[in-house]
């Protein structure tokens, strides 16, 4: 039963691909919608069922399909494991995924390659579920690679424009760099375990048998993989470019699910990371730096989807900060709440873009709150959530992270996090006010939005509003339900309730002040960005990071590649082979001359042989 959750999406992807390929011109809207949306719906029902079972005290559920690799000590079976962490993840991933599928059915309605889209989309769902439900690191890596592939396919979906293909390539390549680290980590882990089994449970049992330095190395390598997948510094540059894909793709992959795979990985390996708190601190600092960095850039962007992309990177930084300092449940909790409001924000942005005939610059929009009421209300709720305003979801999860940072005496992290929270509120409300409140420069005619696009927004808004209460900790009167349920090895620090209230109040104050500042600057008239000062110029150009990478990394690689292709390959390698061929040919010609067809010479050869033997017998063997 458990395996069906993963197998069904793959199967439906294959089915839709075959049907689509059979005749690419036929639309078959009904079929693809039914299969494409029905499969994640069914998976979500199954996931909720398993969640319910685990909730009622059942133990971790294992299902093994078959033995996949069996080479000596390296035994990998195609098996799934539903423990508390994975069941939490698959529950919200499948439910939110189903909602986004419904939204995509409306968004992509007029697209010719409708079937291809849903095939890829289901492939992605299957891969993500495989990643989460995997029972051993190798299966997780299979899922890891597959989500990277699906991301590439979906980003480059509008493949007729070359810049989309470039963006897809960029995403895949940076992912690959991260995967290199990931593979090294897994390999090192396997080698240092020395044959005691390679499933998560057996690794957890034997984790103490690995010495500290190896563990540090493994932790760093695994995190490099997370850096690539979850867009942290320095492997983040693909995420803004990935917005070239269709908006449902951005909503599902680059907001709610794939980018959280890195956080999930760290939480899954919590038994490893709790042994190496120094690496954890490094992770936390990278997370905090990414969060702050992204928030600064987002404050000056003008493309609505790029703002949301940088916002995703920033929130991911929060999650890594949490798992870095040992607050694993808070990190996963933030993943959970973030999925709701970020998916909602992307879908709302997509609705706005479609309504305005694919306009994406927020300064060309304005005054939409009268015309797109539903979208406005839901996005307003989501913006409140992301800014950390209670009682919406984002407040509780962000607060939990910042409290953990403060109480474990990582004050620098706490300061960076709080500053980022203020900036988050600022740029999110800047987006909201510029799109919906400000006076537009010119009037647009609006496209009517189908119900399939607007209804999921309502559900997600409800989630954004209420999901926070699942993680309510003791200070606010809750029972920290998710933290207890997840049962992860959190580092716990005690902090008095009054300090918690003060920190919470500080967060709210920062959020509200950000909102006020944005209101003052953007709510009345649309303000265009101008790069007057040098600082503004640098920030608007995203700190020129892309250009730096191009100069220092890409150019040398290209030069090296050209050198190898033009000089090394034809002259050295081929030259060596040609030398061999020349040698053989000449030797063959030489030997061919021995056989000239004259019997006399053949008799001579016999005589030479006999003579050699005779000489040998006489001189070496001493006569007769």
């Amino acid at each position, binding site marked *: 039963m458990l395996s069906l959750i993963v197998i069904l999406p793959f199967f439906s992807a294959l089915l839709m691909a075959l049907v689509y390929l059979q005749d690419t011109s036929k639309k078959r809207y009904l079929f693809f919608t039914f299969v494409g949306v029905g499969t994640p719906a069914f998976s979500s029902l199954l996931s909720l069922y398993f969640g319910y079972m685990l909730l009622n005290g059942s133990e971790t559920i294992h299902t093994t399909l078959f033995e996949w690799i069996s080479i000596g000590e390296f035994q990998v079976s195609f098996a799934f494991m539903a423990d508390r962490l994975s069941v939490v993840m698959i529950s919200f991933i499948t439910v939110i995924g189903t909602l986004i599928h419904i939204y995509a059915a409306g968004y992509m309605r007029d697209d010719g390659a409708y079937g291809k889209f849903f095939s890829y989309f289901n492939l992605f769902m299957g891969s993500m579920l495989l990643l989460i439900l995997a029972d051993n690191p190798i299966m997780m890596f299979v899922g890891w690679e597959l989500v990277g592939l699906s991301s590439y396919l979906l980003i480059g979906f509008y493949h007729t424009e070359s810049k989309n293909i470039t963006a897809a390539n960029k995403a895949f390549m940076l992912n690959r760099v991260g995967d290199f680290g990931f593979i090294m980590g897994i390999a090192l882990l396997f080698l240092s375990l020395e044959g005691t089994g390679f499933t998560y449970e057996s690794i957890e049992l034997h984790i103490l048998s690995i010495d500290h330095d190896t563990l540090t190395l493994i932790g760093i390598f695994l995190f490099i993989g997370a850096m690539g997948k979850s867009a942290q510094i320095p492997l983040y540059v693909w995420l803004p470019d990935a917005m070239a894909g269709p908006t449902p793709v951005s909503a599902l992959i680059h907001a709610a699910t794939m980018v959280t795979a890195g956080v999930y990985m760290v939480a899954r390996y919590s038994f490893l990371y709790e042994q190496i708190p120094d690496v954890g601190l490094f992770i936390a600092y990278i997370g905090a730096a990414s969060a702050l960095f992204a928030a600064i850039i987002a404050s000056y962007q003008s493309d609505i989807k790029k703002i949301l992309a940088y916002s995703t990177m920033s929130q991911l930084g929060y999650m890594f900060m949490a798992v870095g300092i040992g607050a694993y449940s808070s990190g996963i909790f933030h993943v959970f709440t973030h999925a709701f409001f970020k998916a909602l924000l992307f879908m709302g942005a997509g609705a706005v873009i479609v309504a305005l005939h694919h306009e994406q610059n927020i300064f060309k929009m304005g005054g939409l709150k009268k015309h797109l009421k539903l979208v406005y209300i839901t996005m307003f709720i989501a913006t409140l959530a992301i800014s950390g305003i209670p009682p919406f979801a984002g407040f509780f999860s962000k607060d939990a992270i910042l409290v953990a940072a403060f109480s474990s005496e990582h004050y620098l992290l706490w300061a960076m996090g709080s500053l980022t929270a203020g900036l988050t509120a600022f740029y999110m409300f800047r987006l909201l006010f510029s799109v919906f409140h400000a006076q537009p420069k010119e009037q647009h005619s609006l496209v009517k939005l189908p119900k399939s696009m607007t209804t999921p927004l309502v559900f997600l808004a409800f989630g954004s509003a209420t999901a926070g209460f699942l993680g309510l900790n003791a200070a606010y009167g809750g029972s920290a339900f998710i933290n207890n349920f997840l049962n992860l090895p959190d580092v716990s620090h005690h902090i008095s309730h009054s300090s918690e209230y003060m920190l919470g109040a500080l967060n709210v104050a920062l959020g509200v002040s950000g909102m006020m500042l944005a209101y003052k600057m953007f709510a009345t008239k649309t303000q265009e960005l101008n790069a007057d000062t040098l600082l503004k110029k640098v920030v608007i150009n995203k700190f020129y990071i892309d250009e730096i990478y191009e100069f220092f990394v890409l150019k040398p690689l290209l030069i090296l590649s050209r050198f190898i292709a033009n000089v090394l390959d034809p002259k050295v390698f081929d030259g060596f082979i040609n030398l061999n061929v020349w040698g053989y040919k000449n030797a063959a010609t030489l030997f061919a001359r021995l056989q000239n067809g004259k019997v006399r010479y053949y008799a001579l050869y016999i005589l030479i042989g006999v*003579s050699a033997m*005779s000489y040998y017998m*006489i001189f070496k063997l001493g*006569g007769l």
Partner: protein
Amino acid sequence: MLETNTLEIIIFSILAAFMIGGSLAMITNKQTVFSAFGFLVAMLGLAGMFALLDNRFLAIAQIMVSVGAVVVFSMLTILTINMKEKSLLVEPDKFKWIAFSIVLIAPFTYLLYKSLSSTALKFSTSIQTFDTKAVGHELFTSWALPFEMVSILLLVGMLGSIVIARKKKEKR
């Protein structure tokens, strides 16, 4: 019997000189007929050797067959071919080849000689002549089968030479 031995050695030496001289002449001459003459001399020497070994029958048989039949036949063929002086073979490297081959074959000769003489036997002093009667007796009793087979071989040889050497009536 010292005199016998000395006489035999003298005769042996003369015959050996004939044989070796004749064979050397055979392999170094440019004209074919001269080589045939050298061969004839060598065969006669061989007949003498057989006689020295008290083997009357073989000596006479050798003269009859090898000399009388083979050499004559070779001469006949050589003269039938009737090559003119100018179309005779020119072999410029003849002596180089001979020298090279002698160098190659010297150890083999030595080994052959050593292996044969390692039997360390001596001729028995009693003169045992193999005359026709002795040979004939062996030929028709214990060596009857090889005798018959050789006769068949001779028959086949005759037929074969006729077939090989005849003119083809029809065009190939």
